[in-house]
């Protein structure tokens, strides 16, 4: 791909002796393959402008050529794709980076976006010609018929054409960090107001943080070298002030954007740590997200200049006057040679003067106002600049760069015939909008100032102060004073005062869309989303009344710049079209983040392996060494199955199931939740918490335990063992342990505070090893010397405290497989040793180890439910076939009363049943819906769904459980499961598929 650039000599627009960049320290980067020599201190935007390059991208919808408009984070047009060549990698590539914020870095690869095949020739610029049919809401009006085109034709085509940059195709290899900070005063913005606030606040050990999004503090001072403060040139004062602040212990964070202002003075700051470095130490994060809790916050973010709205206001070379002043004075770059100025605010006059003084020709200053301060016209006359009052721009000429502007004299809303004026840059200013986004995050109220056409910060529920241009204060002297005042108020100090010369204070007049002598089709309001004044008027014509609807219909303010340039212009135009005042129409809501923020910054270290904690049992390393395949269960990593050789999961599970039923299987059940319930009222407490009667549970006995919510629905289940009169060992589901403990604490603390009970989570204190199968006792017996574990002395649902090969043990005779079963509980520290002893003994008799998958199959063969799989928060004990677990004579238990509500006994409730597919080899899909008849017309009545489904090696066929409306009364009925590739017939059965008498439990 080759690009042609017209007559661009290296850095032809750099004005030596101007600016703060160092052109003795060249920095080389590429733009669409062409080498650009920047000066140290440049941004990509200032370096491109120094080379006379204004065209940097194509617009979103119409693919119009676009150039740099601003010099800051509000930039809507100059979005680039950047790759740090020294750091390398597609994964480090970032799309939609603002060229005005990306500092020039040696080796940086910059590419323009949204153009094909090239920036200067773009195929989709055809859209620009089609703009008549692509106006506001065009996608709601077109692409409607035929319906079959929706997903096959329209959506792919629209998706291919939509969007700005191209996302990187590889993972981001950088790391991102996250930090909490606390301070007494946080100052956002290090312009004159922010610096003055920090000066007033610093000292006496107060913790002050000063954050600025630029690579250099100073804000507007960087563009005002001619001013003096306290008798010193502005830049000398700035350097000294920064030294003073540092000496006073102020933390100054650069390249740090305050993106969100949350409750109680919690402010989120994103610090870009390495983007300005060609190479970065590996231990530095790319970005750091600060969560700062501040005692008080001073918002001194300044103001954002508004564009004027006229036809062709988006051509490359049309830019904001304030930006041009920044490029001149901070970066030493003239944005053109023959410049026109169109403004409604005094500030652009000062830009014109500064450009003239730097040797740039300013053809004229056209001001929309009939009158301006005599000092301005006098200063213009001194410099030989033509002044045209009551004059508006009505159109521009030039495709990839502005060539000229038509200016016309206005009388109110009408204009005289326009005259053409050649120029290579047009600087515009529609006045300044205070940056109130962060203030608005606080739910702060804004007040409309009709005279200046601005919303100003009014009251906020947070302990925050606003200062400077962001508070509507204009001019250096007033900004310093208001900053000092805010800082002093925040810190309880006395505000310092400043003496200023060379101030550029001034005023302006608010304008909406400017009057024109022609149909203004391309008067852009929102550059990034290609929304014109016409689109906004059309939205009103078509019935949109609320500004929120106008916004969504036209997409104005919905681009990544969130309407920083466009909101007020859009509002003025909408208000005029609606015949209302701007405050009556109101602003749309400002939401965080203030500027586009990487997901990685928000995620910080919480990604990949460190996304969340992985809990492992003490037996986990053994399982890993044994080649187990793992699965996540809640936060736990559990062994799912133990394949031998080349076994598939199905083969391994079938073998584990068969071995367990025939011989024995050994299972790590340590993840089971465990709660030690102790105290004189422990039995009474458990009797109330669980459905089952617990008062008469004997010491050394276990009982299945079902926990409901007070709404009567199943919440958890487990086994309760009475260790002593006043001590119970309670187990919960693996995922439910914290929730069950919290529920128990809730009832104990707030419903029955009179009960003397102590609850302790003991999940991780115990390693739990389940041995199931006909040979379970044979495996276990040699290790238990101090207790009789024979069938007679230690029957099903018993527990005892004993010694397992010298290790203190709580031994349970319980079963989740339907086989003779034991659970060995030993201290976690001994778990691995005990596991290996049991596995060693097991192997001698032909037993195997098994994982969670086999556990699931074996329990399903017995119809044992898993809470959360068979239940979903709407299943009662009766629905689940667990009525036997309800204590019939209890005065109360959690959930008892709700079970008596008529709805809980309705015959058509979804009840748990078993399903046998007609074809024994078909395994139903869990979650599949169940219907009555295969030929039922659409929409079919969903009777329920499959909750568990497995191939049972024991039964030699598939089994499933399902919740089905009125299921208990449907035994023997055939129901149907419609799937993509056909309808599966299944017969309703009992949920107990194997050993219904339970004889094997008593082996």
């Amino acid at each position, binding site marked *: 791909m080759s690009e042609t650039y017209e007559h661009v000599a290296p850095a032809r627009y750099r004005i030596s002796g101007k600016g703060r960049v160092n052109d003795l320290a060249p920095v080389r980067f590429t733009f669409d393959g062409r080498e650009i020599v920047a000066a140290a201190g440049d941004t990509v935007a200032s370096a491109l402008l120094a080379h006379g390059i204004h065209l940097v991208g194509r617009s979103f919808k119409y693919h119009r050529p676009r150039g740099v408009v601003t010099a800051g984070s509000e930039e809507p047009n100059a979005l680039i794709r950047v790759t740090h060549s020294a750091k390398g990698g597609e994964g480090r590539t970032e799309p939609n980076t603002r060229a005005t914020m990306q500092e020039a870095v040696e080796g940086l690869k910059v590419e323009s976006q949204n153009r094909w095949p090239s920036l200067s020739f773009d195929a989709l610029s055809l859209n620009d010609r089609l703009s008549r049919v692509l106006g506001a809401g065009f996608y709601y009006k077109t692409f409607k018929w035929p319906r079959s085109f929706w997903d096959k034709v329209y959506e792919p085509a629209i998706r291919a054409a939509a969007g700005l940059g191209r996302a990187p195709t590889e993972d981001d290899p950088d790391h991102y960090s996250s930090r909490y900070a606390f301070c007494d005063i946080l100052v956002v913005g290090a312009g004159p107001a922010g610096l003055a606030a920090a000066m007033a606040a610093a000292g006496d050990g107060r913790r002050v943080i000063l954050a600025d999004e630029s690579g250099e503090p100073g804000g507007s001072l960087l563009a005002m070298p001619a001013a003096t403060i306290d008798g010193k040139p502005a830049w000398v004062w700035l350097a000294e002030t920064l030294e003073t602040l540092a000496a006073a212990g102020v933390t100054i964070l650069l390249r740090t954007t305050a993106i969100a202002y*949350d*409750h*109680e003075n919690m402010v989120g700051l994103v610090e870009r740590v390495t983007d300005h470095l060609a190479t970065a130490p590996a231990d530095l994060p790319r970005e750091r997200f600060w*969560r700062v809790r501040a005692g008080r916050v001073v918002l001194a973010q300044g103001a954002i200049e508004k564009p004027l709205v006229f036809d062709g206001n988006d051509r490359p070379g049309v830019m904001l006057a304030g930006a041009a002043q920044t490029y001149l004075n901070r970066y030493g770059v003239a944005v053109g040679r023959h410049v026109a100025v169109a403004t409604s605010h005094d500030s652009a006059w000062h830009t014109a003067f500064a450009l003239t003084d730097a040797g740039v020709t300013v053809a004229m200053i056209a001001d929309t106002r009939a009158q301006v301060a005599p000092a301005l016209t006098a200063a213009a006359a001194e410099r030989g600049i033509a002044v045209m009052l009551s004059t508006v721009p009505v159109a521009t000429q030039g495709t990839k760069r502005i060539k000229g502007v038509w200016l016309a004299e206005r009388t109110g809303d009408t204009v005289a015939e326009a005259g053409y004026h050649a120029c290579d840059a047009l600087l515009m200013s529609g006045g300044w909008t205070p940056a109130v986004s962060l203030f608005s995050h606080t739910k702060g109220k804004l007040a409309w100032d009709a005279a200046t056409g601005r919303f100003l910060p009014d009251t906020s529920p947070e302990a925050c102060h606003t200062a400077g241009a962001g508070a509507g204060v204009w001019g250096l002297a007033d900004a310093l004073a208001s900053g000092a005042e805010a800082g002093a108020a925040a810190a309880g100090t006395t505000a310092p005062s400043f003496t200023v010369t060379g101030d550029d204070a001034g005023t302006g007049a608010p304008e909406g869309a400017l009057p024109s002598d022609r149909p203004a089709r391309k008067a852009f309001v929102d550059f990034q989303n290609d929304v014109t004044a016409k689109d906004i008027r059309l939205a009103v014509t078509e019935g949109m009344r609320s500004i929120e609807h106008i916004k969504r219909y036209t997409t104005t303010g919905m681009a990544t710049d969130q309407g920083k340039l466009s909101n007020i212009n859009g509002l003025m135009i909408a208000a005029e079209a609606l015949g209302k005042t701007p405050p009556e129409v109101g602003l749309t809501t400002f939401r965080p983040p203030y500027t586009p923020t990487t997901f990685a910054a928000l995620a910080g270290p919480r990604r990949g392996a460190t996304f969340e904690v992985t809990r492992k049992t003490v037996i986990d390393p053994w399982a890993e060494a044994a080649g187990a395949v793992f699965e996540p269960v809640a936060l736990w990593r559990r062994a799912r199955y133990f394949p031998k050789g080349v076994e598939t999961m199905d083969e391994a599970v079938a073998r584990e199931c068969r071995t367990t039923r025939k011989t024995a299987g050994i299972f790590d059940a340590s993840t089971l939740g465990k709660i030690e319930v102790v105290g004189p009222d422990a039995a009474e407490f458990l009797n109330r918490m669980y459905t089952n009667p617990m008062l008469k549970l004997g010491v050394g006995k276990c009982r299945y335990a079902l926990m409901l919510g007070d709404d009567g629905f199943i919440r958890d289940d487990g086994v309760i063992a009475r260790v002593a009169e006043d001590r119970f060992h309670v187990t919960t589901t693996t995922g439910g342990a914290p929730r069950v403990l919290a529920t128990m*604490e809730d009832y104990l*603390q*707030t419903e029955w*505070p009179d009960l003397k009970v102590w609850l302790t989570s003991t999940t991780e204190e115990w390693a739990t090893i389940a041995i199931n199968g006909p040979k379970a006792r044979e495996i276990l017996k040699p290790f238990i010397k101090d207790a009789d574990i024979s069938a007679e002395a230690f029957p099903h649902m018993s527990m005892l405290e004993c010694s397992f090969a010298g290790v203190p043990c709580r031994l349970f005779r319980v079963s989740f497989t339907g086989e003779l079963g034991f659970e060995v509980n030993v201290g976690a520290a001994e778990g691995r040793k005990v596991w290996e002893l049991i596995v060693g003994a097991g192997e001698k008799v032909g037993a195997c180890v098994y994982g969670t998958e086999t556990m699931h199959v074996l329990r399903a063969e017995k119809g044992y439910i898993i809470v959360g799989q068979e239940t979903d928060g709407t299943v009662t004990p009766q629905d689940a076939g667990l009525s036997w677990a309800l204590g019939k004579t209890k005065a109360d238990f959690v959930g008892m009363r*709700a079970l*008596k509500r008529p709805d809980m006994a309705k015959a058509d409730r979804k009840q748990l049943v078993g399903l046998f597919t007609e074809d024994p080899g078909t395994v139903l899909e869990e979650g599949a819906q169940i219907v009555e008849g295969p030929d039922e017309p659409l929409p079919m009545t969903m009777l329920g769904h499959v909750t568990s489904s497995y191939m049972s090696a024991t039964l030699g066929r598939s089994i499933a459980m399902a919740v089905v409306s009125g299921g208990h009364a449907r035994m023997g009925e055939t129901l149907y499961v419609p799937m993509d590739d056909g309808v599966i017939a299944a017969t309703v059965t009992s949920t107990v598929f194997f050993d219904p008498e339970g004889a094997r439990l008593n082996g």
Partner: protein
Amino acid sequence: MILIHCPYCDETLPEAEFTYAGEAHVVRPDPSVSDETWRDFLYIRSNPKGPHAERWRHAHGCGRYFNAIRDTVSDRVLTTYKAGESKPVLPGDVK
């Protein structure tokens, strides 16, 4: 992230240390009550615009449940008090 004062720890701490536990002063009735009364206990909540008495648990601290008055408009906790204490009278409450 709002700040909450734990009345047991007597410290004002970030919301992340706490879990919400529903409206406060909802009394669990005796099981002998009517279906309607039990339904109301289960499902009917006041959902006010303004001060709301609610329960929080200092889950990552002392583990205690306590009550808070939070303004649902400003999302600020106006006051907190221990479980079992009666709801404080706030300025503007109808006596």
